[in-house]
């Protein structure tokens, strides 16, 4: 029964596909999978938006949207209708083709990311050998769409915002890659399924999630930070910094394209958190052996929603970083730590079982963290303000 | 009659022999000092000259006494002192001096006569402003002459011989502002030089053969038996033996210096010099040097002669001597200049000496030389005082009747004249000439020289009486106030006159002291000497000849003193031969025509040769080099530079082209690259395919 519940979608799919001629079945199955993803994740998007607005409100000591439906539950529907019906204004001097292509390219790329994630037990759309690599390759091209958006709207603010976004995404892509690399190194394979299977064992009921190892925990933290930066969220949301750049690179967008951007952003967030879950939180494996009965895909979605809450929570609390602080933080703090983490994992790998490796690795990481923080991030004295006028 | 001189072993050189070199050295040093004296220092100059010669005379007398001593106790004195002059590799050249009767006699004669002439010339040259320079040359001449006398080495002799030649040139040309004097000096120097060239050849040949030039060197000298036999064995050209060939060459030198026939032309012209010079050089010393040289080299000349026989060299000497005697006597007859007559008489007397040497051996020749030195010096100085008295008048036709004006000069001059003519019994000339005639009589080769000499004696007496009568007898045709010369001139005349008479004693057949001395043989007084076969007859003939000459002379010219312009008596008698004789038988002209003409022709040829041929060659070479240089420059400029410049130009333009490609535009480079790849691959495939 549990098994059936777990594999319900897989069986459903196979059943549906079986009506088709044999040579067509394989593609049809894939197609079906794609449809499912495209349906579920925007739904989750709607929920997250609502959750975010209600959560932020609560955090800021105010109610969130509570007019549309009871406790504002239907707010996302209202937003959706609003964005669909709003007039889609394209600035005259904008580069029409690129302007239109940008959001489309973004959404396409983001959804392609999900092809690789193991949503449930053998529910990965494409069981690729180099799945992680594919995900990061796709992740890397989102920057391009951001840039296209920013540049095509021929607006100084949007261009500035795009440049900031691209710079930020590029500089955080490296730590993101490096932190995930730790897991790949330890499991010895790039394919997400293998990684999840590696974490799916339980000792005394506790799962072998990587997060419970010193390097795994550090990796997760770094991955989370890089992930936030990658999706321009929370403390790193400089591109849309409302106060200065109005809406960043999608200032000139309105109507449906704006919605697409919004969708792309949140789906990207969910993708990153899904990957994080797969890598560090055991993908679709249950937190406790006991809870094994719950279907795998449920756990996956739960972890994603948990990550979302974390995003919203972080967004509500941390102030926005300045651009140079952002850059310094990336190149001088996160990247070195990830490299150290790699070394730490290697150390862990060769020290054999026993308490010693726990102490050494964690000590090493803590030491590095405090040293880096103490030296690297000391608050520089504020020098005299220097003005640089545009040439 | 000649015996080979026995060569006694030399004793260790005595003191006087060792310092014999002082005799020539002192006068030469004196002349050096005088040379530095200033012109007005006349007194010191003459004192120095006379003093130095007196000192040499003293030393000469000591040496003479030493030789006499040696001769007295019976061994022939010949002491030599030799030393190596310079050494080059194995061969070394030695010099040295010798003291033997021959050199002793000459030393005394030269120093004594020289001293008298020095004293005489202080008076004679009193008015001349170059007085100091005169005495410097005189003492230099005396030193050189003494050097010739004592020399034991032919080389040292030759060196002094050249010095004598030089000083004769200087003294003859003393009044250099007179062109005739300068020309005469040059003439004298050149003609003697001709002789000296042969002399040098002889020396070199001798040195080549015998390896040494020393006369006597304890057995190895060139005049000693060992060398002579070597020389005899050596055949020379035209059938001569080496000895006679060398002898003849040396005789040529002597002929030059003593004015023998072919080379006598300079002697009469040498009268241009002051009279003491003529007296010293042409009477006593220099001319005697030639005869002394032959005497010194006599063993070489005589080598190979059979006893009583004679060698070719000696016969040549005899013939030349006899011919010169006759020849000069004839010319002397037609001369009008008082000194020129005496000059020719000297030439003829030298001919007598050479003949005497040739026929009679060293003693005969030398005795006549000594006597002749005294009376000829006397005659020249007498002529000098006559000229001095007649205020530099030299032409006898402008003189006359000086007998009363200059009695002492007349008396001494008469004694000299009679000695020269050979007035029998009383005067030395008679005995010395008689010795020669006696030798000529016994000359085995031919009787002709004897007759030539006798006829010469006749002519000598004739022209001397002509001269005396023209000068001293008859009316005074020249300047009226002829005055007697001062004491300093007349006393030497008197002394010489005494010797002109006294010297005869040592050479008479009765007491042949001089011959004995020379040949270091004991001599004793014996009237028997006269009863030699034919001797008395010879004496009779010579006396007749002398009286004949005197009579003829007095007959033609005695006391007549014709007008200066009037033609000579003999001239009117036989005008043509008189003219020849007056013009000295055209010997000078003959030389002018032949030798000088040849030389000037040869000079022109040489000049032409040098200018055309050598010059031509040199300019040709220069031209060729010039050509080569231009070719080089052309090549260098066009070919080398040309190609180089052309090459650079090409490079430059090529560079320019290439530079254009480097236009800085990257794309051009890429395009070129692409095109190159295309071409390359096509080539590759094409070549691959083919």
């Amino acid at each position, binding site marked *: 029964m549990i098994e059936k519940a777990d594999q319900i979608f897989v069986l459903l799919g196979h059943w549906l596909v079986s009506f088709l001629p044999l040579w067509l079945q394989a593609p049809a199955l894939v197609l079906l999978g794609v449809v499912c993803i495209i349906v579920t994740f925007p739904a989750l998007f709607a929920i997250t938006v609502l959750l975010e607005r209600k959560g932020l409100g609560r955090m800021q000591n105010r109610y969130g949207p509570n007019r549309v439906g009871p406790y504002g539950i239907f707010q996302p529907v209202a937003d959706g209708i609003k964005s669909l019906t709003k007039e889609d204004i394209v600035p005259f001097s904008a580069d029409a083709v690129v302007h239109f292509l940008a959001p489309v390219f973004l959404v396409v790329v983001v959804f392609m990311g999900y092809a690789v994630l193991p949503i449930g037990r053998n529910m990965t759309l494409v069981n690729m050998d180099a799945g992680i690599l594919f995900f990061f390759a796709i992740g890397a091209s989102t920057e391009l769409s951001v840039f296209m958006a920013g540049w095509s709207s021929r607006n100084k603010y949007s261009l500035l915002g795009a440049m900031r976004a691209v710079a930020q995404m590029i500089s955080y892509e490296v730590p993101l890659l490096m932190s995930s690399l730790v897991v790949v190194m330890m499991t010895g394979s790039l394919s997400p399924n293998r990684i999840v299977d590696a974490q799916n064992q339980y000792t005394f009921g506790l799962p072998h999630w990587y997060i419970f190892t010193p390097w795994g925990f550090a990796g997760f933290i770094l991955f989370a930070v890089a992930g936030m930066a990658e999706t321009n969220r929370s403390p790193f949301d400089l591109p849309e910094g409302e106060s200065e750049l109005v809406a960043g690179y999608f200032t000139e967008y309105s109507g449906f394209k704006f919605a697409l951007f919004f969708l792309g952003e949140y789906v990207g967030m969910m993708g990153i958190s899904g990957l994080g879950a797969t890598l560090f939180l055991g993908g679709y494996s249950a937190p406790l052996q006991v809870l094994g009965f719950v279907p795998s895909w449920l756990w996956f979605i739960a972890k994603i929603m948990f990550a979302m809450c974390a995003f919203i929570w972080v967004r509500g609390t941390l102030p926005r970083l300045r651009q140079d602080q952002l850059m310094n933080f990336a190149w001088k703090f996160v990247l070195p730590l990830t490299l150290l983490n790699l070394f730490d994992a290697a150390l862990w790998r060769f020290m054999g079982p026993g308490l010693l490796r726990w102490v050494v690795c964690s000590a090493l990481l803590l030491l590095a963290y405090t040293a880096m923080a103490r030296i690297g991030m000391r608050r520089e004295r504020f020098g005299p303000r220097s003005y640089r006028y545009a040439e | 009659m000649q015996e080979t001189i026995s060569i006694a072993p030399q004793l260790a050189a005595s003191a006087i022999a060792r310092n014999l070199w002082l005799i020539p050295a002192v006068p030469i040093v004196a002349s050096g000092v005088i040379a530095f004296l200033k012109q007005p220092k006349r007194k010191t100059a003459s004192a120095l000259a006379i003093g130095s010669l007196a000192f040499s005379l003293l030393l000469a007398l000591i040496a003479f006494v030493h030789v006499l001593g040696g001769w007295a106790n019976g061994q022939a004195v010949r002491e030599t002192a030799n030393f190596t002059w310079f050494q080059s590799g194995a061969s070394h050249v030695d010099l040295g001096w010798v003291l033997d009767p021959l050199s002793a006699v000459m030393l005394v004669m030269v120093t004594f006569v020289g001293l008298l002439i020095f004293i005489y010339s202080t008076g004679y040259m009193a008015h001349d402003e170059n007085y100091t320079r005169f005495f410097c040359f005189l003492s230099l001449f005396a030193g050189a002459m003494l050097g010739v006398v004592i020399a034991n080495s032919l080389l040292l002799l030759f060196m002094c011989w050249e010095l004598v030649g030089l000083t004769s040139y200087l003294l003859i040309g003393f009044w250099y502002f007179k062109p005739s004097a300068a020309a005469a000096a040059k003439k004298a120097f050149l003609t003697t030089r001709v002789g000296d060239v042969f002399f040098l050849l002889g020396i070199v040949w001798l040195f080549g053969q015998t390896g040494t030039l020393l006369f006597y060197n304890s057995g190895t000298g060139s005049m000693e038996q060992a060398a002579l036999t070597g020389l005899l064995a050596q055949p020379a050209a035209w059938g001569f033996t080496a000895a006679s060939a060398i002898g003849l060459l040396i005789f040529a030198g002597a002929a030059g210096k003593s004015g023998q026939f072919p080379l006598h032309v300079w002697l009469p012209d040498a009268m241009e010099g002051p009279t003491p010079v003529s007296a010293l050089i042409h009477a006593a010393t220099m001319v005697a040097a030639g005869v002394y040289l032959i005497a010194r080299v006599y063993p070489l000349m005589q080598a190979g002669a059979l006893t009583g026989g004679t060698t070719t060299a000696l016969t040549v000497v005899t013939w030349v001597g006899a011919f010169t005697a006759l020849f000069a006597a004839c010319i002397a007859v037609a001369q009008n200049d008082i000194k020129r007559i005496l000059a020719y008489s000297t030439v003829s007397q030298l001919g007598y000496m050479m003949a005497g040497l040739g026929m009679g051996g060293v003693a005969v020749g030398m005795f006549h030389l000594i006597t002749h030195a005294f009376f000829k010096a006397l005659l020249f100085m007498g002529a000098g005082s006559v000229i001095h008295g007649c205020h530099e008048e030299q032409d006898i036709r402008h003189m006359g009747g000086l007998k009363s004006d200059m009695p002492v000069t007349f008396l001494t001059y008469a004694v000299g004249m009679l000695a020269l003519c050979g007035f029998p019994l009383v005067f030395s000339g008679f005995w010395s000439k008689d010795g020669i005639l006696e030798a000529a009589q016994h000359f085995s080769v031919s009787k002709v020289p004897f007759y030539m000499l006798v006829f010469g004696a006749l002519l000598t007496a004739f022209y001397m009486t002509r001269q005396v009568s023209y000068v001293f007898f008859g009316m005074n045709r020249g300047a009226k106030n002829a005055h007697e010369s001062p004491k300093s001139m007349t006393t030497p005349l008197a002394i010489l006159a005494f010797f002109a008479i006294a010297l005869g004693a040592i050479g008479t057949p009765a007491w042949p002291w001089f011959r004995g001395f020379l040949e270091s043989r004991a001599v004793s007084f014996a009237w028997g000497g006269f009863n030699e076969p034919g001797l008395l007859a010879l004496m009779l003939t010579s006396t007749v000849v002398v009286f004949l000459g005197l009579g003829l002379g007095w007959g033609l010219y005695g006391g007549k003193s014709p007008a200066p312009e009037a033609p000579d008596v003999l001239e009117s008698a036989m005008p043509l031969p008189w003219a020849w004789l007056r013009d000295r038988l055209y010997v000078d002209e003959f030389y002018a025509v032949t030798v000088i003409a040849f030389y000037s022709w040869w000079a022109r040829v040489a000049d032409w040769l040098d200018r055309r041929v050598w010059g031509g060659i040199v300019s040709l070479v220069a031209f060729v080099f010039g050509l080569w240089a231009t070719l080089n420059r052309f090549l260098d400029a066009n070919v080398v530079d040309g190609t180089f410049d052309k090459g650079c130009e090409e490079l430059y333009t090529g560079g320019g082209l*290439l*530079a254009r*490609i*480097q*236009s*800085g*535009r*990257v*794309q051009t480079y*890429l*395009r070129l690259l*692409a095109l190159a790849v295309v071409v390359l691959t096509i080539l590759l495939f094409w070549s691959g395919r083919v």
Partner: protein
Amino acid sequence: MNPLTGYLLVAALLFAIGLAGALTRRNAILVLIGIELMLNAANLNLIAFWRYGPHPEALTGMMFAIFSIAVAAAEAAVGLGLVISIHRHAHTTDIDQMNRMKG
């Protein structure tokens, strides 16, 4: 016509296009783009040969391509860095004006 020649032809075409771009365009960045295209054409060639070559298991072709991609990335980075610095100095990215190296 077997697939390999196809791939090779496509690679050649891409290479030629990249070359044309590099040779003709005036803008320095577009020249770099041309060069990137040429490099990619080469990679395509490599992988095509690897895929259809005799020893696919030797992985040489792919390895070569991967390394070439890495190097090309480095090259692009440096090239663009240069272009930017030139722009800062010469205020132009027009290739024709960058002829300071003229001979």
